[in-house]
Structures are given as C-alpha cells and as structure tokens.
C-alpha cells in the first residue's frame, strides 16, 4: 500500500469515527429539539419520529402564554445577572488586593478561598437553611443571590488575580506619580484593560447561577420564586408528563448559554479550562 492510499484510508476511518462520536454527542440533543415541536401525544409515537409529522409550536406557546412559566425565566435572568454583577464587583476588589499588595494572612486567605471550591453544596445547604430562615430571606431573590456567591466568588477571585498579574505594574505606578490613589489606578487603568478577563469570568459566573439546582430547590418554595431548572421539574406532574413542554422549556433554558458560547467561544473555553491547562 502506498503512503498516499494509507493516509486516505486513515482519513476515512477517522471521519467515520468522528461521525459516530457526533451521533453520541448530538442525537440526544436533536431528539430534544424535535420533541419540543411535537404534540404531547406524539412523543412516544411508534415508530419514533426524528422529524415531527405533526409539527407544532404548541409547546412553546404553552410556555409563553403561562405567566408562571414566563416568571421562571425572568427569575433565572434576574438572579443570574445580579449574581454576575455582584461577583465581578467583589472579585475585582479582592483580586486587586491579591495582585498588587502584600499583607498579613495572605496565604491563609488564599487557602480558604481555594478550599471553598471543594466544599460540597449539600454540606452548606443545611446551615444555609437555618441561616436563611433566621435572616428572613427564605423564598426570596436575596437568599438565592447571596448563597450563589459562595460558588462564584472563589473562582472569580482566582481568575481575576491571574489576569491582573499579567498587567505590568508600571500601569498603576504611572497613576501614583500623577498623585492618584490605588482606587483610581484600579478603576481608571486596570479595569478598562481587563475587559477580556471580566467577560470570561462573567460568562462563567452567569452559567453557574443559571444552572444551579440544589439551592434553588431548597431555598425557594412558591412557584413565583422558582427558577428554570426547578420549573422544568415542576412540569413532571403527578399524573401527566408534559414532555413536549419540558423539552421546549429545556431548549429555551439553554438558549442564553448557547448564545454566550457561540459569541464568546474563545473566552468561554479559555475561562473554563484555565485551571486544567497551565498558562
């Protein structure tokens, strides 16, 4: 066999393997999309239809015309955006301190921040439940936003510190020479040039908040406070399963993440894998 035919064969084999892999990754997702356009009675039609025979927007209409279900989305957007803004604000301040100052207990604080990320959510949930009831924020936005910060802050601080460390100190020195404070240096100089880092951290933070399930399940109670992940579960009724609506809500629920991924693919993957790949 010549080198050329061998490489052609290898290529065909590779493409075949890639297509099989793509089926594994994507067919379930296609099935979700297709089911969201079916009437609920066709969900288990025999034989299964990958392309809906009775194509309908009903499942989407059912979501958009039900104020409770629209509210799930509004709640999710509100909570996730608030968490993102707060996280970025607090993390920028902390990262500035870590990157530009030396202070006592720096190592201790560092270890605490790092280890927070390994603490199981279920362990925190029990005292949070007590605390949230005590603070009177059970079943409120504040309760969710506050507790989500425990997931988002450590990562955001670590990422932003890394980002600030890549910026030369001469930048803030210049401000000091002109008589400006460190506060001016941070907001006038460092933050404006850190936009890529902020986008990366922001996307990641938004995703955590958008996807969170355990705290949303436990720390909220009434339907008007529920977020999308819980809303999807609420469609699994006692007697009937609205499969088509669950699928349309799932599609709508992944749209923000999908858009973030498509528009910010580089930041997205860069941010997510920063820990695993040494930079």
């Amino acid at each position, binding site marked *: 066999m010549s080198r050329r035919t061998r490489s052609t064969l290898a290529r065909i084999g590779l493409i075949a393997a890639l297509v099989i892999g793509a089926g594994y990754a994507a067919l379930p997702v296609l099935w979700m999309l297709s089911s969201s356009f079916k009437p609920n009675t066709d969900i288990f039609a025999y034989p299964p239809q990958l392309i809906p025979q009775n194509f309908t927007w009903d499942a989407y209409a059912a979501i958009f015309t039900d104020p409770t279900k629209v509210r799930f989305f509004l709640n999710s957007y509100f909570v996730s955006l608030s968490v993102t803004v707060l996280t970025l604000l607090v993390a920028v301040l902390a990262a500035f301190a870590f990157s530009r100052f030396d202070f006592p207990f720096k190592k201790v604080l560092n270890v*605490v921040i790092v280890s927070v990320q390994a603490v199981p959510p279920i362990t925190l949930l029990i005292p949070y439940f007590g605390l949230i009831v005590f603070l009177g924020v059970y079943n409120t936005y504040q309760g969710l936003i506050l507790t989500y910060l425990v997931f988002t802050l450590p990562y955001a601080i670590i990422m932003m510190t890394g980002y600030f460390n890549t910026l030369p100190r001469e930048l803030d020195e210049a401000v000091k020479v002109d008589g400006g404070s460190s506060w001016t240096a941070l907001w006038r100089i460092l933050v404006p040039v850190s936009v890529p880092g902020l986008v990366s951290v922001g996307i990641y933070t938004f995703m955590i908040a958008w996807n969170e399930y355990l705290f949303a399940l436990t720390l909220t109670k009434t339907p008007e406070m529920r977020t999308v992940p819980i809303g999807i579960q609420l469609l699994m009724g006692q007697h009937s399963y609205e499969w088509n609506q669950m699928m349309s809500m799932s599609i709508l629920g992944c749209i923000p993440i999908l858009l973030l991924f498509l528009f910010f693919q580089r930041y997205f993957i860069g941010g997510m894998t920063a820990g695993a790949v040494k930079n």
Partner: protein
Amino acid sequence: MARRAALLQALPSPAAESDGGQDRLRAVRRGAVPFGYLSPTVVLLMILMVIPIVMVIGYSLMDNVIMKKNPQLVGFKHYIDILTSDTFWSAASNTAFFTVVSVVAHLVIGLLFALMLNSPLLGGRTKAVFRTIYVLPWLFTVAIIAVLWRLLLDPNGVVNYLLTTTGLTGTQIEWLSSPETALFAVTFINIWSGYPFYMTSLLAGLQGIPGDYYEAAEVDGANAWQQFARITVPQLKPIIISMALLDFIWTTQQFALIWMTTGGGPLGTTEMLSTFTYKLAFTKYQFGTASAAAVIVLTISMVLAFFYVRAQRARD
C-alpha cells in the same frame, strides 16, 4: 454541570513589593488599604463559609436543631448512627461506583475525542464543526440533562426502540426504574454530560505539545503507539491528574442528576451520599443526623482536595 468548571488552583503569587524607608504611620495606613479592598470578600466568606461550617459541625453534635427550639447536645450519637446504618454504606458504595466509572469513562472518551480532533488529517473547518458538536452536552444544565434522558430512556422511548428493533434486547427495559439497571443508567447519563470538560482541556493540552517532539520520534523510527505512550501521555499527565481529581470531587457531590432521574430509587439502588443526606434533612427533617452525614461528606471532599492541591503544587 457548570460547577465542574470551578477551579481549585492556588492563587498566582504576585511579585513582592518592597517598602523600605517609609515612616511608620504611612506604613500602617498602607497596610490597611488591601484589607479595604478585601473586606467584602472577607465578610461574605465569613457568612457563607466559616459560620455555616461551624454551624453544621455544631448541629451534628445536637438533637432538635433548626425546626425545633430546644437543642440538646448528644455528642457523637449521630455519627455512630450513620456509620452503623446499612443505608449509609450502600449510598457510599453507590457513590464510589458512580464516581469511579464516571471519572474513568470521562477520561477515556475525552482523550479519544481530543486525539481525533487534534489529528493532522483534518482541516481546520472540519475540526471546528466537530468540536462544536462534541461540546454540546456541556451546554445543558443538569436539570435539562435529567429530563432529556428520562425521555430517551423511557420504557417506550427511543433508546428501547433502537435496542429492540436491532435485536440487541428482547423486551423493553425500564432503565431508570428497575433495580438491576438504574445505577448503570444514571452513570451512563453522567458520562454523557461530563466528557466535554476533559475533551476541551485535553485538546488544549495536546495543542501545547511541541511538534518537534513527534518529529524527533519519527526520525528515531517510533510508531504511532510508541509516540502516544512515550510523548503524548507523559506530556498530558499533569492535566489528566488534576482533572481526574477535580472530577472525582465533583462527582462524589452530584445531587441534581440523581434527584431528578431516580430520586435515589428504586429500592435505594442509586442512593448517593448527597441524596442520602438531603433526604435526612429535607424529607425526614432529622437535621442533626443529616448534619453528621454532611460533615462526613465534607471530610471526604477535603481529603480529595488535599491531594488535588498537592498535585497542583507539584506541577508548579
């Protein structure tokens, strides 16, 4: 699950700032500046971490906490109750199975896909298309993944259709509701949802291996397998170790997927440490016992995190 992507790496250390010859008062004021920037973080960490952990340890030694008003100290009673209960040990063994199989499968599938996507036989465009497809499961939250797979694995669902029409199985299998298959089914779902994290990281790692390593090996007559075993694997080893440990920590904590697919059933065959703890607290309202379970889970995670931080240090 998104939390997957959180990192346990140490904060990068900045250059030390020397501050000689300053007068004392200014030094003190300067010393206060970083704490001003850190104060929101410190306050939040106190409320969200330090106090809750002290609380949960306290609860674990007491009876009648949270829901009742007369807490009493009972010492290690709850720990003894848990460590002598069969449910706990079966949850622990389910968690171990679920975690080990998931981590190994994530690694194998992630590496396989990364190697395929990194092949020089493919054009840039083909790579980009397949990479986007392969990342898909990552873009869905656990709640969505759970309902989607409940639909797919329904006795009348499409998976059973494919298996029965191709003759691989004779009858429709109730994947998530029969005790023989449920644990395998949830593990399978978790594998599907988790491999893209590895794939993306390993792909970045592969692209970082200098091409001349392979050229040199080629000159020395090394075949593809030898190149893989002698160059690729050793070069990726640090990434593999940290990802596997991270994944190990997160998978032992998995809750939402189990809760929304099987709820720990049937007959406790998919009960995990997380669902076990959750049920103690929020369906049985035994907050003392639940807290003891939560502290045990915390200890396991901390031990794993210790190894992770050590592996991370060794890399730097």
